[in-house]
Structures are given as C-alpha cells and as structure tokens.
C-alpha cells in the first residue's frame, strides 16, 4: 500500500498565485495554521506573467472615477451576467487592496505628485490600472511572496493535488504527490481554499503555462461543487503569431493603452469599422481623438482598439478570414507610429513597455520601436469556474472555498483587463478570512482512508501500463487541436457535438495512457494525470457552449449570432450527476438591488 506523508492544518490553500497567497496571508493573520501547496516553485505561478496592471478606482489620475463607475464598467464588460454582489465588493475593496500591497513593499509607477499612477485599459472608462511598467504581476507576486514567508504559513512547493477528500458532505483536506520525488502526501484541513487558476492548456494557442490544466475545476466538480459560466473562455486579441514556437505568447493590452493601433494588410485601422451600440457613446470618432485619449486628454473618448477583448478578437478574426491579415495569419499592431507624434518615442516605448520590447527583440528579431508587430487571438482567461457565494467565496460544498481565476461570477461573460489582479486580492482576502472562520467553527474531519488509497493506486496506474501504452503528450496534443478548432472563438452546434464525441474518445485514450521511468520529477507521468482534468474541463466548456443558444461576451455562436435578452437572465451551471454524468442547467440570475440598478442605468 502506498505510503502517505501526513500534514494537518486549519486552512489549506491550494495554489500560490496572487489569490492563493493573499488568502493564505489573511488566514494566517487570524492565527490559523495555514498550509500552501503549489505545482511550481514559489513565485512562478501565472500571476508572475501579468503585465498591464491592477484595476482599482483610486481616482489618482482622473478624479471622476469611483467604485460606482468601476462597478458599472465591470457589469457592462460582462454583459450583465456577472454576480452583482461580487462586482460591487470588487469595485469597493480593490483600492484598499492595492494600498495594502504598497504597505507591504510594492512600488508602483507614480503620478507627478507622488501617488500611484494609473493607466488606460480596454473597457475601463477612466485610467484605472495601477502598474509597474509592463511587469505588474511580478511586482504583485513578489510582494505577496516576500510578505507571506514571514507570516508563518508552511509552503509545499512543487506538489500537485490529486483529489479533495470528503467527510460526511464537507471537505476534509486534499491528497497529492510531490513532483521532486513522487511521494504521496496528505494535507488534512478544516477548510480548503482552491486558487488553482485557469484552463488555457486545453487549447493549442494559449498565453497560459503548463500549470493551467483546470485542476481546481475538476477537483471541485468531482466532489460535487457546482461550476458556472463555463462557456465563457476569453480569447485575448493580441498574442504573438510568429515565430511558430512562440505563437500565443501574450502582447499586453498596455501596447494599445499607450497608443498602439491595429491595422490590416491594407493599412486600414479596421477597428473603426464596427463599434458595438453599447459602446458607441464612449468611443472616439476619429483617429485624432483616439490618440488624444491615450495621451490623457480627459475630453477625448477612447480609440476602438480599446473596446472589450471579445470584440477586438472577433474583429481580428474577421480581417484574417477576409484575407486582409498579416503574412503569418494575424494583423498588425503598431506602436512605432507614435514617433510621428512624440519626441524620443523609442525611449518612451522602451520605458513604458520594457518587457514587450525585450520579448520581441529576443524572440522575434523585431524592434517594436521601429516596426509593427504581428498579432492574433490567443486563449487567455477563464471567466467561468467554481460557483461561489459572493461574500464568503464558499462553493456549494461546505468548507470548500475558491478565489481568483478558478472561481466564477465577477466577470460574467467577459473580463476587463486588469480586473483579474484586483479580483485575486479582493477575493483572495475574503476567501482567506472566511475559510479561517469556517475552520474555527468546525472540528477536524475524518480522512477517508480507502479513498486515499484508491487515489494513489489510480495515480500509479500509468506506470503499470508502461511506456508502450498511449503517449500522454499525444493525447494532450490531440485534445488541444480539437478544442482549438471546434470550440474556439467562433462556435457552431454541429462542430461542438463533434467535439463531444472526440472528447469521449480522448477520455478512453487518457485512461490507457502509460509511462516509463520512475516517479522522480517525471513530466510524462504528471501529464498522464493532468489530462483527466483537462478532459473534464473541456467537456464542461463544450456542453455549456452548446446549451447557451446566443452570442454574448466571449461566446460567439455562428448559428445564433445575436444576443438574446431571455438568455441574459440565466447563468449556466454544471454539476456531476449520481452516475457520473455531467448535468447542465439554467440558473436564474439574482437581480441587483435598486440602488445598484440605478448606478448601472446612470452609467449606461
């Protein structure tokens, strides 16, 4: 029988990105014993890659900003499928959370009078993103990491959770293995916070790292938690398209915020060609007005390049399909043109977008201060996730909390840039607080030993099947191809039905996946385990996408190209049925209180 190393905590946090670290810090501050688990080394989670900034209505740059405007922007961006309570709390608490980071040592770029500088981003009415050049995520994760290590939490680096353990309907902890040596571990806990991030690895072209295999979603789903809004996968409009080996790597929206423009092969700024009705009033009529906006003119309206991501991604897709794309199947994103407007433009670009400059220089032999970049859509972010209570972040499973990208609700059908980093802080903090409270009010649960053993046996099965069985990398690769081509930016029912059949076949293949070698840091073994999670998530995305018969936010259905007011009243919820089948259902949205409805109406 496989041996388990055993640990016991009040609160177990799974994930050490922004959400997990913020939750752990908060829980530890209450005196709870806190354990943190992450698949990579500390400080390497996805949060480190975030570039543009943290959205918070500090009103340092434009004093017309307030939590109300941020709230209304978030709801508009999400096409009103958002959990209004989360959108409200997020807008109200984000400024305080940003200030807290500063008190822990984060250094943001400054305004002339020495306060935190804020930049423009798509869908935000006023300059709102606190930032550090284009490496805001690094500043944030390092601040949380360096603060956190002195708070008394115990960090288990390079460990992967295999399953959540249950006791009589509530969560009892988690078990998994350490990647270094492949030993099994048990982390008993009174409350568990999932902060495992997203799912981008289910697609071929993505800005996401190997970690993003949807583990948290699959773990929660298996123990009965409800998932929500799974049809809403964000395709970021600007990923690199060339060279092939860097395809998908993100080009921050900050480029457009600083004045970068999108052009097709005719040199036309095609974003002016189609502006959605609900953004007409806020969008510039001329190129001149758009430029003035990016340079801080408060009377100018934003250029159409800064419309929401779903819309920009679709416009790019349209240009490419119509044969007006760039040589490698994208469109042109040009920041170098600002040399016509600004003295010392090259230095300005290098200072504002240092890592973009570096990234293109190094990986594509291209100098962005002189030439346009080639960009195209890339799978970026999961709006959907675990359905949680807006105040406490507890899921439908008692004692199981979720925060950050793995949770649903805040962003509705489309997330605004910058609203993720703030989400991590606001709801990481809340999840940590309420998880610690739950732990205080509940005793230690009992571990289901047979379940523990069967998890270990299942995890070791790929070794039994050996290296000549199905190659796990191949299964993963084929899944990515299918999701990319059949459940991508433009969807249609017949293709998605086909995807479901393919997913069934892939599930069978995943069950036959085998591996050689031994348990120490065996990437092939890890992949053989991860693909099961990716398959659950892919099925959920596909089923939800088929179910929603309209186009809204990130979901575009060619067979139902219009928004349908009736569908605007529901979220789609997914849960596991009694005989392991996936149940999909509509759940009516709770209407916001009158006061918030008035805010939305006022800002429309």
């Amino acid at each position, binding site marked *: 029988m496989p041996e388990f190393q055993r640990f016991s905590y009040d609160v177990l946090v799974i994930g050490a990105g922004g959400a997990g670290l913020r939750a752990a810090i908060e829980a530890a501050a209450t005196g709870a014993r806190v354990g943190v688990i992450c698949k*990579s080394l500390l*400080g390497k989670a996805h949060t480190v890659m975030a570039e543009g900034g943290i959205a918070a209505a500090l009103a340092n740059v434009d004093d017309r900003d307030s939590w109300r405007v941020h709230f209304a922007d978030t709801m508009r961006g999400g096409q009103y499928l958002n959990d209004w309570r989360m959108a409200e709390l997020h807008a109200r608490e984000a400024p305080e959370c940003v200030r807290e980071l500063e008190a822990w*040592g984060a250094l*943001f770029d*400054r305004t002339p009078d020495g306060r935190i500088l804020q930049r423009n981003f798509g869908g935000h009415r006023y300059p709102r993103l606190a930032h550090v050049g284009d490496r805001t995520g690094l500043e944030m994760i390092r601040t949380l990491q360096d603060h956190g290590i002195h708070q008394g939490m115990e960090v288990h680096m390079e460990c992967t959770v295999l399953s959540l353990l249950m006791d009589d309907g509530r969560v009892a902890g988690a078990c998994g293995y350490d990647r270094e040596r492949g030993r099994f571990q048990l982390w008993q806990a009174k409350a568990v916070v999932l902060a495992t991030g997203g799912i981008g690895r289910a697609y071929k072209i993505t800005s996401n790292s190997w970690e993003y295999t949807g583990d948290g979603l699959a773990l929660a789903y298996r123990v009965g938690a409800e998932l929500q809004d799974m049809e809403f996968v964000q395709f970021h409009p600007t990923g690199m398209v*060339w060279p092939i080996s*860097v395809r998908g790597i993100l080009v921050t929206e900050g480029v457009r915020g600083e004045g970068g423009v999108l052009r097709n092969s005719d040199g036309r700024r095609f974003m002016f060609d189609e502006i959605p009705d609900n953004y007409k009033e806020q969008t510039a009529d001329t190129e001149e007005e758009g430029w003035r906006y990016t340079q801080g003119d408060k009377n100018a309206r934003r250029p159409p390049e800064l419309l929401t991501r779903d819309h920009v991604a679709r416009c790019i897709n349209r240009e490419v399909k119509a044969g007006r794309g760039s040589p490698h199947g994208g469109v042109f994103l040009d920041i170098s043109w600002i040399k016509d407007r600004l003295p010392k433009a090259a230095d300005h670009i290098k200072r504002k977008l240092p890592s973009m400059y570096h990234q293109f220089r190094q990986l594509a032999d291209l100098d962005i201060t002189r030439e346009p970049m080639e960009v195209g859509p890339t799978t970026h972010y999961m709006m959907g996730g675990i359905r949680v209570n807006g105040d406490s972040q507890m899921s439908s499973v008692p004692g199981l909390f979720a925060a950050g990208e793995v949770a649903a609700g805040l962003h509705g059908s489309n997330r605004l840039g910058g609203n993720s980093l703030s989400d991590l802080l606001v709801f990481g903090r809340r999840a940590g607080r309420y998880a610690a409270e739950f732990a205080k009010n509940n005793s230690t649960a009992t571990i289901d030993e047979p379940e523990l053993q069967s998890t270990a046996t299942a995890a070791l099965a790929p070794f039994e099947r050996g290296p000549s069985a199905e190659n796990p*990398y191949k299964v993963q690769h084929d899944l990515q191809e299918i999701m990319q081509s059949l459940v991508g930016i433009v969807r249609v029912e017949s293709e998605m039905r086909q995807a479901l059949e393919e997913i069934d076949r892939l599930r069978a293949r995943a069950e036959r996946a085998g591996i050689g070698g031994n348990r120490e840091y065996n*990437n092939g*073994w890890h992949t053989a385990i991860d693909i099961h999670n990716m398959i659950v998530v892919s099925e959920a995305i596909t089923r939800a996408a088929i179910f929603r018969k309209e186009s809204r936010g990130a979901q575009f259905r060619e067979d139902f190209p219009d928004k349908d007011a009736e569908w605007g009243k529901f979220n789609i919820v997914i849960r596991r049925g009694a005989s392991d089948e996936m149940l999909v259902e509509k759940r009516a949205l709770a209407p916001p209180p009158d006061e918030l409805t008035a805010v939305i109406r006022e800002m429309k």
Partner: protein
Amino acid sequence: MGKPATFRIWRGGPDGGGFQQYSTSVEEGMVVLDAIHHVQAEQAPDLAVRWNCKAGKCGSCSAEINGMPRLMCMTRLNELDLDAPVTVEPMHTFPVLRDLVTDVSWNFRAKKTIKRFHPRLPDAPDGTWRIQQADVDRVQEFRKCIECFLCQDVCHVLREHHKHDEFIGPRLLVYAAALEMHPLDTEDRVSDLRHRHNIGYCNITTCCRQVCPESITITENAIIPLKERVVDRYFDPIKSLFHIL
C-alpha cells in the same frame, strides 16, 4: 519542414548520470526549450525540465547551454552552432534532482534570513505615501529580478567554495539592495550584511552581472553600494565610533 539538430542532454539524478544524445528537427524561430519539449514529447517522456512562461518572465527554465548559464526559453537556436551537438545540462551550483531540474530550495530558505520590509509611517492622513518616480526608478532595476538563480549558479563563492551557509549570493544581495534602497524602508540590514551574510566574500568578479537575463547591474548598482554602506559603518573611524555609542 525543419532541419535536424543534435542535443546532448544530461540525464540522471543525485547518484550520477551522463549525457545522452537526441536528434530532433528544428524550425525557424525555435528556442532551446522548444527542442527539449520536442525530445520530451517524442523520445523521452520522462525527461525532467522546469518551465512556466516561455517568455523570460518567471525564471524557471535556467540551465547551462554549451557551458553558458542561460534561460532555455530565451536562447534562440539560431544563436548557436547547430553543426555541433548542443549541450544542455543542469545548473552546477545546486544539487541535481533529476535531469535538468535542480534543488534550488536553499535560495528560498536563505531569503528568509534577510530582515523584511519595514515602511516608515504613511505620509498622508489617508494612510498613503508620496513617492517620486525618480526614487522608484532607482530600485526598479532590482525588482525586475525573476529569481532564475543563474547569478547564484556562476558565483564562485557558491559554485566552487560552497559557502551556502555563510554567503547569500548575488541574487539575495540584489534583494537586500532593493530593500535597503526602497524609498519607504526604515530597517537596518548593514550589520547583517557584514556578519551574517558575509558580503565581504564577494570580490566583484562581475560574473553574476554578465549572466543576468534581466540585465540587472548586480555588481555596480547593488553590491558595491551595499559594500560602501558596510565600509562606512565599520571602517570609517568616526562613524563607527558613533555607532558604538
């Protein structure tokens, strides 16, 4: 498509190992990490390698490529001579766990020994600070560090003399500099730098600065100013007198 290239990849564990040769086809624009992933997917599924961002932002994929400490995701194959085999091996300064993966946990433990950030009281009644951009710019360079530990890998104090228990290495000297020069910080780390972290072991060979993928001027901007603070405190007769009083 592509043309063939040969890679000599170090395979093994704590008890030893050696180079194994793999050949795979390479295309325009590929980096070393891509080639490693090809080998992994097609020929050696259990090949151990760390990575996350594939864009030089997370500092996970450090290795020694043809003897040079570098990030695998930022090393383009067209910079290398592909007529000869490309050698890829783990960092030497840290114990090998498996193949290209080393045990870097010492860096995380050593970091904890550096006194944490301690800000001055807020400047404004609403609890916020006023900081000038110029003061931010001064430390921003240090805060770019992605903790790839390549500088630790080349530092002879660690690599050859194994002074891990006494010396914190260039990465953590950069960290200490970021704290010491932070516009809000009030903590004093000078005594620790001298006695506990033995900054004196560094003889400014600048090897660390030369490998830093973030181009942090580790020696001139971080270590030398810290050394000056130590000298001012301990070797300037008047100042050291005051300090003792």
